[in-house]
Structures are given as C-alpha cells and as structure tokens.
C-alpha cells in the first residue's frame, strides 16, 4: 500500500500536476501535524472555489474588467504557487497575460482550461490523500527523481 501511495505521488510530479513546493510542504509535516499537507490542500480548494466563482460571475456579466479579473487571478496564482499546483499555476499565468493584452477570448479559453486542471488536481489529490490515510503513517518525504 505504501508503495502504491509512493507511485501515485511520483506520477503527480512526473505528469506536472505538482512541483517541488508540494514536497517542501510535506517536509513540514510532523507528529503535531501529520496531515498538514492535506489540511493546507483543503484550504486551497476552498479558497480557489471561491475565486473561480468570482471569476465565473465576472465573465458571465459580459463586461471584461481586466483589472478586476487580473486581481482575482493574482490571488489564485499565489495560492496555487504556495501548494505547488504547477499546471493550475501555469494557466493562471496565461490568463493574466491575456488580461494584460486585453484579450477577452483568450481569457475565456484559458479559464476553461484552468477549471479543468483545477478539477483534475482536486480529484487526484483526494485520491492520493485517501490512500495515504489508509496506508498509515506517512513515509518521510523524498524528492522525486
């Protein structure tokens, strides 16, 4: 089971969903907070769901306030960077580039992709944490090769 958990985690890095920041967070786990990363991830998905909703509403209104959209996405990118959500972070960067260029179509297209990546990451991490809990106390975090 531990091996399965390790393989799943490795695949998340290999496929680019997570970056080294996630490893840095796992290294902070200790006896006092054995589920620290799962707790921080839960905070991230709660926070990012709110931001996605805000951006959805802003885009549905049809009027593109690029400054406001960029501000929302700055927050989103910040959170994504902090937990190592690599692909989501990349889409945030692209969205902000389109905001600065005043490209509404680019924003809409990128936002759809961002939501997909966000949803995929959420499912993969939920699966990973569920298996990790079943496997028992976590191994010491090791950097992926």
């Amino acid at each position: 089971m531990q091996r399965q958990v390790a393989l799943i985690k490795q695949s998340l890095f290999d496929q680019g969903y997570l970056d080294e920041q996630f490893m840095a967070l796992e290294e902070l786990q200790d006896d006092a907070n054995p589920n620290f990363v799962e707790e921080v991830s839960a905070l991230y998905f709660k926070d990012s769901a709110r931001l996605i909703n805000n951006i959805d509403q802003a885009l549905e209104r049809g009027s593109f306030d690029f400054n406001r959209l960029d501000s929302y996405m700055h927050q989103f990118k910040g959170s994504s960077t902090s937990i190592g959500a690599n692909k989501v972070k990349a889409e945030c960067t692209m969205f902000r580039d389109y905001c600065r260029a005043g490209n509404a179509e680019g924003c809409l297209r990128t936002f759809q992709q961002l939501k997909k990546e966000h949803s995929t990451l959420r499912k993969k991490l939920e699966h990973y944490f569920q298996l990790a809990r079943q496997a028992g106390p976590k191994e010491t975090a090791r950097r992926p090769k």
Partner: protein
Amino acid sequence: MAEKLPKLAKANLTALVVDDNSVNQSIHHKLLDRLGIQNDIVCNGKEAVDAHSSGRNYDLILMDMDMPIMNGIQATKRLREMGISCKIAGVTTRADEEEKKEFMDAGLNDFQEKPLTISKLISILQNLELYIVKT
C-alpha cells in the same frame, strides 16, 4: 534540511504573520512553528497596525504586499510612523523591481519572494540577525 533546522524556541522569538490568504497564513504559521517561533496571524495591514496599537510587540513581522483594507506598503509605513522598530520582512509574489523598491522604501528590513520555504525563512532570520550561525 529538516535535521539541520535551528531550534529557536530558547531565543523566545515572536512573529506576526500578515497575510489575507488562508493558505499562506497556514504555511507561514507552520514554518515559524517549526523553528520554534511563537507567532500570531492577522488578515491585513490594518489588523497588524491595530495589534501594535493595542500594545502587542513582535521581533519579526512577515508582511504580505497585496491585502484588502490596508496593503503591506501602507501598513509598513504606518508601523514605522508609529515608532515600531522591529524587523519587517516583505513576502510577496510580486517580483517587479519597481514594486519591490516601493515596498522596501516603505520601511522593510528584508524581502523574500513567495512561496516562503524553510530556507528562505532562515535566510530572513540570518539577514536580520535574529539567528546567528555558530561557527
């Protein structure tokens, strides 16, 4: 890195985390905790100013830049005007040189780009002479 972490609990250092983002609050709190630094969290610059107005003091403030109500630049300026002389380290995702200069000019002692890590935090502590490496 974990086995080489300095334990600063005996130094009785205290810190204030100033950030509106719950993810960053949690991470920065944990980083400081790991080094044995007691810390409080507030959500924006105004709360940081209010905390000091009410008499609380800290050895170190980790100050985010972009926050609602009162941002990090405004809060840093205000704290310095109040005579708060503790170490303030700016922690932000904004890497633009002009923005960084504006933040530093507000009264920071140090600056680090997010995401904050243990090594970056130790660097802050060393730069601000809150942690001296024994040789």
